[in-house]
Each structure stands twice: as structure tokens, then as C-alpha cells.
């Protein structure tokens, strides 16, 4: 787990797996467990680092915090599947600037074009 970006991914993976909210301490333990499976010499992770990552994710709107209990518990705002769907909507979708934001290999095809393409593939 070299960079903050990698840590963010690991934290999100854990939060997506867990249905209920969990504390930063619990997250740290789970992350350390995984790290020691991957690499026995991994440095132990500080809870403050996990908290930094969590507050970054909270700012991005991916994580929410339950303030009713102490220490605070964290959970993912939406499921992994919903985020993937959101991403795909952006890729396939029709935002006015989409072409400038990202370039798809092939855009939307019209009915006539689809027919030409099917013919090329040998289907009728």
C-alpha cells in the first residue's frame, strides 16, 4: 500500500464489503491483516493515516460518518455496483462535453449503422 490512492481503494473495498458502519480502529486492523497477508514486512498502519484517508473520502462524497457514537463509525454512501453504474452512465451517456471529457472507441450507432455492422459480422 504505497500511496494514498491505493489506501483509499483498500478502505473503500472494505467499506463496500461491510454492510454496517465500522470504526477507524477496526478498519486499521482489517487493513493490517490484509497487508500482512500480501507482504509480511509491511509497516503497521497508523490510525491517523486511516482517519486522513476517511476524511478525504468523506469530502469526495463517498463515505459518511455516524456521529451518534464515539468513536465515529464510517460507512460507504452507496454500493460499489451503483458507483460502477454511475461511471458507465458517464461513459455511455450524453453529457454535452462528454466527447471532450473522454473518447470512446465507438460512440452510439444509429439503427442503419447497426445493421451494416451486423452484416459485416456475418449475422443477418
Amino acid at each position, binding site marked *: 500500500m504505497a500511496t494514498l*490512492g491505493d489506501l*483509499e*481503494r483498500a478502505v*473503500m473495498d472494505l467499506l463496500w464489503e461491510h454492510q454496517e458502519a465500522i470504526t477507524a480502529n477496526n478498519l486499521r486492523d482489517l487493513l493490517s491483516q490484509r497487508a500482512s497477508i500480501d507482504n509480511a514486512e509491511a509497516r503497521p498502519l497508523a490510525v491517523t493515516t486511516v482517519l486522513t484517508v476517511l476524511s478525504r473520502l468523506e469530502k*469526495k462524497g*463517498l463515505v459518511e460518518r455516524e456521529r451518534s457514537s464515539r468513536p465515529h463509525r464510517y460507512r460507504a454512501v452507496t454500493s*460499489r455496483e451503483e*458507483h*460502477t*453504474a*454511475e*461511471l*458507465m*452512465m*458517464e*461513459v*455511455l*451517456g*450524453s*453529457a*454535452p*462535453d*462528454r*466527447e*471532450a*471529457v*473522454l*473518447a*470512446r*472507441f*465507438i*460512440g*452510439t*450507432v*444509429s439503427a442503419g*449503422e*447497426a445493421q*451494416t*455492422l*451486423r452484416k*459485416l*459480422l456475418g449475422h443477418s
Partner: protein
Amino acid sequence: MFWTSWFLAALAVILAWPVPVFLSRAAWPARAPFAAMVLWQSIALAGGLSMIGAMLCWGLVPLGETLPSGLHGLLGIVLGSESLDALGILHAFALSAAALLTAHLVFTLWLTYFRINRQRRKHRDLLHLLSSPSHDRPGTLVLNHQAPVAYCLPGGSRSVTVLSDGLLELLSPDELRAVLLHEQTHLAQRHHLLLWAFAAWRSALPWLPTSKLAQESVSSLIEIMADDVALRSVDKPTLVTAIALVASGSDQLPADAIIAGQAAQIDTPTTTSARLSKLLGTAPALSLFAKLCVVAAALLLLAVPTALLVVPGILP
């Protein structure tokens, strides 16, 4: 200055309507995409320059014989050393319009840049959480989704090509190579900068035929350019099969079909048609001489309004 302003106005009108209409209907751009791209850029730049230049020159007519002397006179008015009466209301109006149009174009360019960058950053953040790096291909991310999609997300050193699981299952290694070469060409040739400039041009002047036609043509041309580069390493049937498979694969997805309805108005269906007719047709590339003529015409087009504005005394 008087005749300069009228000449520039005529040029602006020609570049705003008949020229782009003819060029967008012509068949040769697909045979010389690079030269055509240079020409479109020149039309957009020369068009903007003559529009602003015409209003500026006409506005400055009462203040001087040449652009520098006119601007000097204007500076005097702005600083208060000379009276505004010398200008007259109509000429003052033309000068304000020139200033407003310039500000509008610059501001829209800037705004579009920030909007695009913000969307890219948001997309990239989410992408990095949801995808995993490809083991054997640097700069490539694999997204866990069944729809066969491939796209590239530009962003300097953080540019990435994204492939979905669905795409990796659907395509053979050679077809996949064609897709990757196509996407990497977009990144290597900085096509996103062209798309940005023409998207900004279109949102700044949406009522102008040239801005819409230019953006659509440029979108088609970059796809053809990327295909041309891919074809240097893979054969034509492989690339066409890859296009057909990805297009019909994503066609069958219900989610995509829903979006396709909305996308039809913005996503240009002409892009795919232009690509296919180029790939399936047998028209050879334009000769080198013809390409050079197009590039020379483009440079001349840009040089004329520039010279009229900068060099004093070409037209009275």
C-alpha cells in the same frame, strides 16, 4: 481602414456559413484527415479574427487611418484626454461589440476548460476506486463491467486507457490491440485539445453554422486519424471486426439503449458512418500535392485577416 473592415466582414460571413457547409459535405476530408483538420482550425481562427477585426476596424474609422493610429486615438478617449464625440455612437457600439465578443470567446474557452477538467477529475477519482490496473499493459485500467467499452481519459501524465471485462472477453488479442492502438493515438496526438477548443467554440457561438459543423467534422476526423494509425499495425478486417463487435455488443445492453435515445441528438451518428465508409471504401489517400495545397490554403486563410490587421495600408 474603412475598406479593411468591410473586407473582414465579408470574410467573416463567408467563413461562418458557405465555406463550412461545403467543407462538411465534401468527401475528400476522410482521405486527408490531417490536412482537413488544419483547414478546420484555420477556418475557426480566421473566422473569429475577421469577426472581431471587422468590428474593431469599422469602429476605429473616425479615429485614424491605420489600426495603430486608431488604437492610439481610442487610448486617448479612454484616458480622457480626447472627447468621446469624435467617435460617434455607432462606432462606439461597434468597438464595444468587438470587446464583448473577444471577452465572450476567451471566457467560454476558459470556462469549458474548467468544466471538462472538473468532470475528468471526478471521473478519474471514481475510476481509480472501481478499476484495477492491467497487469501486462501500462497505463491501462480494467473496469469490472459486462458492457464492452473502451475509452481513454486524457490528463497529462495521468492519462489512462480504460477497458471493461466485457470487452476483454469479447475481443481476440489482435482486435484488442486494434482498440488499444486507436485509443492510444487519441492520447498521443492530444485529440482532446482539439475537441476542447471546438466544443468551446460551439458553446460560445451555438447559432453559428460553422461552430456546429466544425465540431461534428472534427469529431469524425480524429476517429479516422486514430483508425489510420491503428491500421499501420493491424489489418483492416481486424479493426472493422473490433468496431462491429463493440458497437453491437453495447447495442444489446438495455441500459445503453435507454441512454442511446438521449445521446442521438448530441452524439453525432455521422462519426461512425464516416469511419465505416472510410474503412470499407477503397478511396486512396489524397496525393501529397493535394494535401500540401489544402494546408497552404489553410495558412493563407489565416494570413489574410492577420496581414490586413497588422500591416497598415494594404486596403484604404
